[in-house]
């Protein structure tokens, strides 16, 4: 129980932190990253350090090059761009992601497709967080269902493209900040996959 609890917490906080990393950097970016990574302990330390020590204008420029384009997007940030033929936004996989959210009574309010990395990571945060909350509430069956959903969502969606996405970042980023985010996120996802506690296990 304690292991599951810790695992859920680490994953919930981790997903939230990485989601924060993919927002367009505003002028308070450094503070945002500092605060978001606060609960992630050592995992976030390198990233937070780079956020402190990199010129925010360089980070902004790199963000646009990697995730926005506007000419050629070097690390397209949505699932359908990797998983579907011709890779456009709002593919069938994007609609499926939307359905997942709806099943949990959620709606995407970000001005991006439902399968944008920010939103998918936040959804994973939600699932891990719900597992934690319902477990703490004494509803362990419900907690296990949330963990199953988290694993299914990863295997059907996020994990299917996250590595290619991270690879695009590592290959094309000009700032060590984003390279570091990609590296540590990849590591985090691999670790989470191993340790995701499922009822059937």
């Amino acid at each position, binding site marked *: 129980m304690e292991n599951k609890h810790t695992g859920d917490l680490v994953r919930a*906080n981790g997903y939230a932190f990485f989601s924060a990393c993919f927002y367009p950097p505003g002028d308070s970016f450094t503070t945002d990253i500092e605060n978001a990574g606060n609960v992630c302990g050592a995992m976030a330390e390198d990233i937070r350090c780079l956020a402190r020590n990199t010129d925010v204008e360089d980070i902004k420029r790199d963000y646009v090059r990697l995730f926005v384009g506007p000419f050629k997007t070097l690390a397209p940030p949505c699932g359908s761009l990797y998983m579907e033929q011709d890779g456009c936004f709002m593919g069938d996989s994007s609609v499926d992601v939307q359905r997942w959210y709806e099943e949990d009574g959620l709606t995407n309010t970000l*001005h991006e497709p439902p399968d944008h990395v920010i*939103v998918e990571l936040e959804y994973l945060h939600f699932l891990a967080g719900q597992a934690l909350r319902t477990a703490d509430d004494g509803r362990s069956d419900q907690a296990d269902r949330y963990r199953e959903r988290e694993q299914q969502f990863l295997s059907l969606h996020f994990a299917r493209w996250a590595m290619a996405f991270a690879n695009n970042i590592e290959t094309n980023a000009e700032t060590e900040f984003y390279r570091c985010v990609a590296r540590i996120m990849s590591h985090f996802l691999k670790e989470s996959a191993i340790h995701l506690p499922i009822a059937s296990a």
Partner: protein
Amino acid sequence: MSVLEKSLTRKSFVKGVAAGGAILAGGSVFAPTLCALAQSDGGTSPKSAVKGEWRSTTCQGCTSWCAVQVYVQGGRATKIRGNPHSKVNHGNCCVRAHLSLQQVYDPDRLRMPLKRTNPKTGVGEDPGFVPISWDEALGMIADRIMDLRNNNETHKYMLMRGRYTYMRDIIYDRMTKIIGSPNNISHSAICAEAEKFGAFYTEGLWDYRQYDVPNTNYILLWGADPLAANRQVSHYTNVWGQVMDRATIAVVDPRFSASAGKADEWLPIACGQDGALAVAIAHILLTEGLWNKEFVGDFHSDSPVQAFTAGAIIPEDFESDGSTVPTFQEKHTHGLLKWWNLELKDKTAEWAAERTGLPVEQIRRVAVGLGKAAPRAMVWVGGGPAMQVRGGYSCMAAHALNGLLGAADNVGGTLAANKVYTQAFPAPDDFMDAVAKAGKAHKKIDQRGTKEFPAMKKGKPGSAVVTNNTADGIINEDPNEIKVAIAYFNNFNFSCPQTERWHRALAKIPFMAHLTTHASEFTWFADVVLPCSHHLYEKWGYVKSHGNGYRHITMNQRVIDPVWDVKTDETEIPWLLAGKLAERGFTNLLDHYKQYKDPETGKTPSNDEEFALYALKLATQPLWDPAQHKGGDKFNGWEDFRRTGVWNSDPYPYRKRWSAMKTKTHKFEFYSETLKAALTSHAEKHATTVDDILATTKYLARGEQAFVPHYEEPFIWGDAQEYPFIHVDYKSRLNREGRSANCYWYSEFKDLDPGDEAWSDVAKLNPLDGKKLGIKNGDDIKVISPTGSLTCKAKLWEGVRPGTVAKCYGHGHWAYGRVAAKQFGKTPTGGNNNDLIPADYERLSGASAYYGVTRVKVVKV
């Protein structure tokens, strides 16, 4: 909320996460914190559960402007079809409409406002864009406009318009005038403006025509390819099979076009010799007695001359019973004998064959075929003969044939646009202060109306835009420098000939904002970039189009909720900018826009979205409001009109314009009093003669010949020895206003253009020429003109006239996206024809010359 705004308020999310962790340490329950996601209110059905439906809107992939419908399911656009309610395209849509699905969801689409950080601009200078909020972006633009106003320099503001809807006056006219500048520059001169020259200076029609194909027996398509590109492709493609069953179709084009593939004859004319063919056909129609008597008239029964004979001048009148009587009694035309005497009498088929490279028998066969089919015969003049340096008169000569055939405004002939009943927006005059009036009085940056650029729209010198010359005006600061520019739905440093001049011009402008859906070469030079709504899926507006004997008004509608935080170029952005100007003390623009009240409720717009919708309702009110109905379709009200998506005019009133044309004589003018008046007016304004004007505008005609359709030897750049081929440009059936190149389907299906290849950009040579040069299919070649070059693949194809190199326009983007550019920022996929074509003009209309402009040479690389 925009992504950037979300990030700015992320503090709450971040705080929540941190707090969650902290609370947990104290033993309380963790609660996931949401920022991008939100709990549904439970009231509305989930998007994915909502049944799909067809929603009406408009496609602007070309200027057919078809009424279409989009199947929207789960909030997503998935399919396109024609809107069955339109009487113009009647449920049909062409292939290019479907490419829009790959545009609206293009991974390289512009998704948030951006700001340049690299202070240097140039082809090799990455802009270094960073994300900014809408607020900051609009504030930057407003600051610069206020600087101009405060320094009485508002004439140094410029608005460049690319593709528009009829919401255009809000940004193009009203905003420019109220700020106080003369410099609203449209794209018309790079469109097909010279084509209107021929129709205006004969029958008083400064417009594109529609063609009564279901009722015709002969079509002579002249430098026009309606099965591929413009105008009303969906309609013509759909009915063409029936047309082929009843009519003879002949196509004049140096290359074998899509329409040539569905025709009876192909006339592979030598480039630039269209005028020769046209005057020869006129000569044959007259000498064979095949002109249409009902429209044109006939010889006076007592006239000693009763026929047109090659080489023989015909006196315009004769003596009969002591009075002077016209030799020829014209009915609905003017100046036939003048035309014959000045130009046509010696222009035999043999004479034309020498110049056009066409067989004498073919010229005769087509001329006689037309004549025998008249009046149900038409000469369909496209951009081909018109958009040449000396294209004004060739286009006029080709169109004049419709007068001889009695096809103008007749059943089975060429028709104008039916009457429609939209209304104009409120006038700006009361909102133009002294600064604005003074600024507006300056001369325009495109130099229209100067001696060299008569640019005579509808007979008025200096009234037509000279789009491509704007670059030179900016570079030379003539008449003045440009300090602040806004441009929308355009890409002039790709779409205008001799593109490098635009690179220099754009680098010179200190501040430029580009409003667009997709970043392109033009955006590369921008200081601020604003993401815009896609015209087919996300924008409110309307356009008008005519075909099939009708005109329709079709609305662009917001059929999906935009995924990204985009705004509409012509309405929402001007409103928001007006708000920023008001914050800075200049309220005139916002005060003006507040006049655009909702015609249904009388409500004043309170935000950009309301403004966009009210403006559309206002402009179209006579169409949907039963109390204001004037003609055409009737609706119960706005919602009824909106759901249908399109209004159709009354049927075409054939022959209504006979002897009521908007020419000086009200007749179809073979001797153009209208052109005479226009040229004389322009000459007088510059204290010179018409002959001097013609010399200045690169024409050869002198004296009276200037006022009749006549043959001009083509003006083509490059020495024939050094540059042995003539360049032939043409348009693709897949081009969506030149911006399809980043759609996979564009490349995958490129061989829909006859002779072209999928996944490649080819320049086509005739196999005879290829053999001489030792060039094979697939070779990498460089095509070089006196002013530029491009690299692409070679294709040997019989559908290309020997001595020419035919290449489609569309490829050659070096800054567009993952598919369009081969190596982004460095190497384009294929080549842009405009890198080859020199900046030259048909100066009487101001139009850019694209066809028969330059010679080229070809080398292997």
